[in-house]
């Protein structure tokens, strides 16, 4: 019994660490980058709130998709499952967002709710979540692996976003050539960080 638990924990953590480091959702796969850059440049969104919300949604949606998508493969539509899966995942995201917002709206104080709601929008439907879910479904992960991978991905996303927003402080100054300011220098900055993460794996596993 004890060893089963230990094995489960080990699987969970190894998949999380894999998703945080070598398969970092931003630096190795680029998932959710456009959304993330828009979030960082949106003064009304807080990085921590946004990424925490993303973590929550990632977990909920991973579980939902893990339960719902296999049903398609057992239905008469199994031959078309590959083409239907995105619809189901998006529907899962939509349902979870509405439920979470309603629950928060009724339980939180009005001021606290107002404070976080701007960060919640956009955290529910983005390629970081959808991409991670499709990946873990495609690899046939079991429940523990799915959760570990999902959690690791969103923590990796948080760390990547913190590094990028830390970088924004260093690359937004007047010494940067005019044509490089904004998107180009941010992408070059991200490319150096992605290069550093690449040192862990040494091969591309993106496609």
């Amino acid at each position, binding site marked *: 019994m004890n060893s089963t638990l230990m094995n489960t924990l080990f699987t969970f953590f190894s998949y999380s660490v894999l998703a945080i480091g070598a398969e970092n959702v931003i630096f190795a796969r680029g998932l959710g980058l456009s959304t993330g850059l828009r979030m960082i440049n949106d*003064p009304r969104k807080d990085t921590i709130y946004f990424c925490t919300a993303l973590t929550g949604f990632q977990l909920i949606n991973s579980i939902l998709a893990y339960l719902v998508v296999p049903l398609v493969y057992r239905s008469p539509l199994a031959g078309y499952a590959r083409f239907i899966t995105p619809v189901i995942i998006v529907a899962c995201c939509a349902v979870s967002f509405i439920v979470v917002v309603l629950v928060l709206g009724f339980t939180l104080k009005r001021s606290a709710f*107002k404070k976080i709601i701007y960060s919640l929008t956009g955290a529910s439907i983005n390629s970081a979540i959808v991409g991670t879910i499709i990946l873990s479904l495609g690899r046939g992960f079991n429940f523990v692996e799915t959760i570990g991978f999902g959690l690791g991905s969103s923590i990796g996303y948080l760390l990547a976003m913190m590094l990028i927003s*830390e970088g924004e*402080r260093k*690359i937004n100054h007047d*010494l940067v*050539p005019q044509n490089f300011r904004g998107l180009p220098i941010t992408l070059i900055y991200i490319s150096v960080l992605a290069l550093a993460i690449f*040192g862990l794996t040494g091969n591309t596993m993106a496609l």
Partner: protein
Amino acid sequence: MNSQTYKNNYRQHYDYMMLALAPLIICASFIYSARVLLVCGAAFVTARIVDVAMAVIRKQDIDVDDKSSAVAALTFAMMLPVSVPLYIVVVTVALTVMVGKHAFGGKDAYPFSLAALAMCVAAVNWPNEVFKAVTPLTDVNFWTGAAQSALTGSSQIKLGGLPYISTFDLLLGNHPAAMGSAFVLVIVAIGVFLLATKQITWHIPVSFLATCSVFALIFPRIYGVSRLYSLKYEILCSAIVFYAVFMMNEPATTPKNPRAKLIFGVLTGVLTMLFRYFGSYEIGGCFALLLVNATEGYWDRLFENKADDTEKEDKPVKVTVKPEKTHSKHQPETNGKKLYKKEPVAAKPVKAVKQPKDIDATTTLDIISRAEDEIDQVDFSTQTIDMEQALREFEERYKGGK
């Protein structure tokens, strides 16, 4: 200390680093033939030419005294094997100086260690050429670099073997390795010299080396021998001492606060060992340094807040802001109103204006719709991101809508 003297100190630092690299180059050319001078010369000349070309393109004065890219190019060359083809050196140095230095604003403003960046770029692009070590004191073709290659000590450890190199040879650098990163005794002497002349402080090298040593002691990779024996090979076979002295003390890319420096060293040490153990390249230190460089500002800020005022006075401004020539001098006006959108300005640091806005709304759905409504007002573009303006517009729009 004002920013001018600080910049002068930067210059002095790079002068001393050039001086410190000289003994290494001499030792290397003694052990690995005169081709070392060719490789170093190619790196040095490329760095200077790109610097000048960039100054011309950016319409700035050519700064002959700025040796930062030359120091980085030579440091990078010291990490290469003597057999490396010259085009790799030239392409890597040119790319690194152009993108890693000048795109980020040029001297003293780049966020990543240039030597580490160059080494990582070379390693991922041409791993076969960059990780080919040459046996010392053998013949090397001056022009082509053809030589007898051998397995380095650190790749032997990586493959699970036990390198048979005497301690004396390890200290002297008489074993197959990169050009200049294995002369441990010489490097330590240079480190002491740099410490004595106050060009570097002890914080980063000591904390970095201590962390690496502790890590290697706790998790030995060579089995069947004592932990101390394993530690000796872990530290002396790799370029860890070289990183500690030559790459981790660059003023532009390391923290200024002593406590921040300690954390910086520890963090780099841990990441270096993780990269060495689990990564696929031998130069884990370079990859780790790039990652930790990105967090440098955070550690400084963390301790700056806690520091007392006297410490604050010593803290120099890292980036001196200098207005750049704008593309257009035309700002035609009609009836006192500006006709055109103002010229692009640098986006302000995001955090400075990032404050949660408190907005009145009655129902939950109402709030969501407002949020969704205005979400697209701030667009991420190279044109202009004037956050305050965008915020003002957003507020006005909202009030108007209400």
